[in-house]
């Protein structure tokens, strides 16, 4: 796929990953997560044939659907965040900008290490890894943690697709993504038990 499309995908990933950090409504989180997998699909296409790259987007959308369906069945309000976590949108936006800057700086060297995967691919991948780690660092709620882990994995998968074309790896990573979504759903249901009981 042409390189300009890859840069469009990177822009999409910047919007979705930053959006995932900023939004508080779970519906937007799921929508942004699903959109993120479209960006991931485009970047994976730089190295993989369309058939294999589709596996990523299909597994990602299925995972997003699993999380969304589970969340829709739970109480409407999100459980309160522990007070030690920074919650302000401005803080998150600032942190996201820092990640963006760090990623821009390290992209050339990582691209060199990863057998010249392509600037767009490396940049998009590192961006997702960084934003996912940031996400994991500032929340302890199950849905954001699951989304954070899926974001980190999505970033890693983009980068790894540039050096590994095994069908088995693609299949196992898809299974892991779906498994992560199922585990996230399971933990969300379990978290909700206490709230339901306390009502």
């Amino acid at each position, binding site marked *: 796929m042409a390189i300009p499309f890859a840069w469009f995908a990177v822009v999409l990933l910047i919007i979705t990953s930053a959006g995932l950090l900023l939004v508080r409504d779970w519906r937007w989180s799921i929508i942004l997560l699903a959109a993120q997998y479209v960006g991931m699909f485009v970047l994976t296409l730089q190295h993989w044939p369309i058939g294999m790259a589709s596996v990523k987007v299909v597994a990602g959308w299925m995972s997003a659907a699993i999380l969304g369906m589970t969340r829709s069945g739970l109480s409407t309000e999100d459980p309160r965040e522990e007070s030690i976590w920074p919650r302000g949108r401005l803080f998150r936006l600032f942190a996201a900008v820092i990640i963006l800057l760090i990623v821009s700086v390290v992209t050339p060297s990582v691209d060199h290490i990863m057998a010249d995967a392509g600037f767009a691919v490396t940049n998009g991948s590192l961006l997702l890894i960084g934003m996912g780690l940031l996400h994991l660092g500032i929340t302890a709620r199950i849905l954001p943690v699951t989304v954070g882990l899926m974001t980190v*994995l999505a970033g890693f998968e983009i980068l*790894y697709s540039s050096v590994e074309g*095994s069908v*088995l790896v693609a299949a*196992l990573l898809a299974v892991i993504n779906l498994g992560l979504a199922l*585990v996230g759903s399971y*933990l969300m249901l*379990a*978290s909700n038990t206490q709230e339901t009981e306390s009502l």
Partner: protein
Amino acid sequence: MNAPTLWIIVPILLGVLLLFVNNQRVLSVLGGLFAVGLALIAQFVPLEVAMKLGSYSLKIDSSLIVLGRVLLIQPAEGSLLALIYGAAALWFFGAEASKTATRLVPMGFMIIALMVAAIAVQPFLYAALFIEMAILIAIPMLTTIYTPPGRGVVRFLIYQTLAMPFILVAGWLLAGVEASPGDLALTAQSAAMLGMGFAFLLAIFPLYNWIPLLLEESSPYVVGFLLWIVPTITIIFGAGFLDRYSWLRSSPQLIIALRYIGLLMVVSGGAFAAFQRHLGRIMAYGSIAETGFSLLALSLDFRLGIPILFLLIPARALGLAVWALSLTIIKENVETMRFGAAQGILRITPLAGAGMIVATLSTAAFPLLAGFPARLALWESLSHISLNSALWMAIGIIGLLTSAFRSLAVISMAEEYTSWKPRENRAQIIMLGLGMIGLFILGLFPQTLQFLLADLPLMFEHLGR
């Protein structure tokens, strides 16, 4: 018939089928018997050899091709499979006594099968994917749908998941190092990636904070099972890296790093255990020290270290099983496992109390117990290399011993004239009794398991020869 089908696919299917069984005893017995069966086949039926059974000829092939890649169980790995499934049988038989059979047996089978797949998959660095799948299956085992998950479960999921990308990228980088061994920058990058991956997987200091949390939140028996299987397979997987890459094997920096990390785990595990006031957290730090012992074994001359590493495995499996079962029984009878609440519990759960102390002492290398022979050999070998290291190992062991004696003091400190009212049921008494006898047998006669352990180093091409 082929080996991966028998020891990977069949146990996964079995685990799925057992999900539909709700009877604790049936599950425990069925799971235990199947695991014993798989262990016996692994030990006594040779791979790649045609056998005549009446008019039939039976041969177990060693490989299975899945999506263009190979799952390969080499004939030399038969003893390892026997050890893994044998220890699994022990955990499954004890599951009824701990009342965790409905969760432990079905998911335990799937986890063990995936761990075996991690050892069998070629190229071997794909093992990280199978280990991650096993971790995902472990989550429903650790927490039920009826109780909110604690911080330990979430951290366990995060830390173990983060390990996978590091190891996969490290594997790819290592191939580059092999092609151009002079590239020092690439070597450093791949070693750093590998180190991070294994630090997450093995819960190396300071990434082990999920272990004490898990032992506070979840069933000790289920957590104990994970603390046995995950580090055991991960260490073997790690040894596979050393076996595969000669520059890693011959790197003095890596050996020193392994030694220091191992000592850090032993000393921090022992020191933290000594100051804990929660019986579950003491077990957590005991298992952390166990991982440290394994890393120390890997840091020795491989001809000495690899046999010691394998000698540590059965002691760890049995010790953790007895410890975890004892804690599960104690937990049933107290409000919390804090010292204040568990005071005098020996009068209510005498065997569980004794089991816990014996298992702690075994981890702390107390003479005549299962952990002693391997640790003695380790200590002696370590002292030949560095007396300081041997001294630090002793400090860790003293910490573990202190925790054992503190626990003993607390559980036996009942009020005056308190009568003995044992509440353990028959299954618990039998399993704890057998477990403790096993700990003594392995301590007194370490050669008992030599028929299993002697050939294990053969699974590596370069290590231990």
